[in-house]
């Protein structure tokens, strides 16, 4: 007789008013991703395939309004959703909590503080997690006046260039090198805002899978030297392809400009995470259409900057104003005049019904 499969008890979590059932051990972020992009917190350092990643950027902070059904007290501080596991009956506020929106605005500001904002010449522009995050959560101007920290550019190996000035120290490349490659030769040196990703005594990264650090980098700090400054991502057409590779899965995305393959990357899912890491041969050496079996165009959201050639507020995510109206919380950003967005301001008692936290005094 076949053994009956024992299904674990599913846990009910409410995120921004939407209920979802997940397995025990799921993090808040994963539960939110299960619901969809509208409620998924942004993640700058967390990378699902990499063990131990997360918790560093603080972009995914959420407010836990009720810890669990057993203990419905709210958590005292905002928590990193990428590391906090869900409890049954947990109520999470993502963008519906003014406290979270405020904290994220702070995180964007902190991340951009020492970021050069050289997007017009950066290869990552258009597929940059930091750009997306800043677009969704940041303020329009900076309040920082001092000099930004700068570093020399370093060639680490024949294929990769490290432009530390752009780095946001997410540690993803360190985890990648640690877990995908046999010998990690690079890591974080220094401390505080002087910390930098570096190789020990200018050592080259020489490994079959080293190219993956380029894919995991959320910003343009690690760039592909065979692609550097050759193109803008929105001029290229991504096509899924595969080849019979002895070292890796051989499943890649080819980026075409006209007839030419401009670059090869691993395939990414809708959360911009690589699903299968690829080897350097596939990535750097096989740049002819004849090397590959074409599967078809890569699915790219129509509103993505890659296909639309510009950032569009309407389809990627509802605009700030729409989210504001939908969630019925009060505008906390004084710089934006909500009356111009055509939103009717609601009396505090009304949104209190939807969101009890809205009436709580700010700490």
């Amino acid at each position, binding site marked *: 007789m076949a053994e009956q499969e024992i299904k674990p008890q599913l846990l009910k979590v409410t995120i921004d008013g939407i209920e979802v059932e997940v397995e025990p051990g799921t993090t808040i972020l994963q539960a939110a991703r299960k619901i969809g992009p509208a409620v998924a917190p942004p993640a700058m350092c967390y990378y699902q395939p990499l063990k131990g990643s*997360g*918790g*560093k*950027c*603080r*972009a995914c*902070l959420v407010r836990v309004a009720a810890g669990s059904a057993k203990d419905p007290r709210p958590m005292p*501080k*905002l928590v*990193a959703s990428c*590391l906090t596991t869900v409890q049954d009956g947990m109520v999470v506020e993502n963008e519906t909590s003014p406290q979270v929106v*405020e*904290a994220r*605005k*702070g*995180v964007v*500001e*902190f*991340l951009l*503080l*020492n970021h050069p904002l050289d997007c017009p010449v950066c290869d990552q522009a258009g597929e940059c997690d930091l750009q997306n995050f800043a677009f969704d959560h940041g303020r329009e101007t900076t*309040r*920082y006046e*001092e000099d930004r920290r700068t570093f020399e550019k370093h060639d680490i190996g024949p294929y990769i260039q490290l432009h530390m000035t752009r780095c*946001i*120290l997410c*540690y993803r490349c360190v985890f990648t090198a640690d877990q995908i490659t046999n010998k990690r030769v690079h*890591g*974080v040196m*220094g*401390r*505080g*805002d*002087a*910390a930098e990703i570096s190789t020990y005594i200018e050592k080259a990264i020489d490994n079959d899978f080293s190219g993956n650090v380029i894919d995991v980098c959320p910003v343009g700090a690690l760039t592909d030297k065979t692609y550097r400054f050759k193109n803008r991502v929105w001029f290229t057409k991504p096509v899924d392809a595969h080849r019979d590779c002895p070292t890796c899965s051989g499943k890649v995305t080819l980026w075409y400009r006209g007839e030419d393959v401009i670059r090869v990357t691993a395939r990414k899912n809708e959360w911009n995470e690589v699903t299968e890491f690829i080897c350097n041969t596939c990535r750097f050496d096989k740049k002819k259409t004849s090397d590959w079996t074409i599967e078809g165009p890569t699915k790219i959201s129509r509103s993505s900057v890659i296909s639309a050639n510009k950032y569009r507020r309407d389809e990627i995510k509802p605009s700030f104003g729409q989210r504001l109206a939908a969630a019925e919380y009060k505008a906390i950003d004084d710089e934006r005049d909500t009356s111009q967005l055509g939103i009717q301001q609601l009396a505090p008692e009304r949104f209190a019904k939807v969101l009890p936290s809205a009436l709580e005094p700010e700490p």
Partner: protein
Amino acid sequence: MATKILTEHINVPGIETFDVYRKQGGYTGVEKALKTMTPDAIVEEVKKAGVRGRGGAGFPMGMKWSFLAKPEGVPRYLVCNADESEPGTFKDHYLMKNLPHLLIEGMIISSYALGANKSFIYVRGELMYVIHILEKAIAEAKAKGFLGKNILGSGYDLELVVQPGGGAYICGEETALLESLEGKRGNPRNKPPFPAVKGLYQCPTVVNNVESIATTSWIVNNGGDAYAAIGIGRSTGTKLISASGHINKPGVYEIELGVPVEDFIFADEWCGGIRPGHKFKALVAGGSSVPILPANLALTLANGEKRLMSYESLSDGGFATGTMLGSGGFIVFDETSCIVRNTWNFSRFYHHESCGQCSPCREGTGWMEKVLHRIEYGHGHQQDIDLLVDVAKKIEGNTICPLGDAAAWPVASAIRHFRDEFQWHIDHPSEATQPGAVYRGEMALI
């Protein structure tokens, strides 16, 4: 004469040697614990005593011990946090330098209570000579059979390891300390899991401050109830206070918790008052991380009662009118000290010591330092004060470890209580940047 639990024999010549320490009644706690008590009984006594963590957080030590997971077949560790690096705090240094055997005795008792067979003392790397003192003391204790295999015939084994730190403030945070002890980069871990479940080498671990551990021998000898009888309310026992600043008698004092702050500053028994001809302006009561208080709030509570040296009384009124006992780094400022400069100095320290792992702390501490620097040097803008408040608010509570809070609190509190002084620096830059210039406006001086 106030009760002295830790420093009673500190002035006896040669107390750092085993023989003199033993003659003064040392190691009787170990004998009593190992021969007559079960580990659980010791934990129970420590719980009864109500000792609160002396490293700064003030978390009850007995409770921390009882949280230790005890899975079968997995070693447990005790780690003594002697990485005392908080500006204004130097009590553990004093204790270890003079009474190394008191700490070792405490380590043996605590390790026995927790069932740890290998325990570590993680000492701040700058204190190399203290490390030598401790290592010598450990060798003596081992030679006399108080460490090693089968201690005093009880069948209990303990190995004690002294590990020098690498010189980072962040390694005083318990999980960063564990990372450092494992030989990794001293980055604080995300919690949960807490060290009591997964600590050193992923095994259950308790991390305690030097002073907390040193109390255990007295507690074992005299009982938890006797310890709880000292002090006031939930602030039981005695506390070492590192007094520094503009006082007549700086130094380390052991006080019974509950002494009025006013007495502690002005009585001859302790600080002996503000230096002659000057007046008391501000107080940092528990190390540089805790909120600074102006003189009037330092001595009295918001309701007019006297403020006492205890966990509850110092934090009375929250951060609006209160502060924290913290690690007992008691820094007194007279009217010649510039709060802006002092805040900048603290901020510079946190900027330098941030590990750089999480973004609010990595970027925010540097930003605050730069803004404070430009205010101090006469380049401040009108909006800078509000900017500082906002940045501090965005760091606080949003970081992995408490260093972010520790960096934000001094800045936020200095602006809360001394806003006029910051404003004066911005409004009168040429005056404020004169050498030795200090704000002389309206403020409470005592």
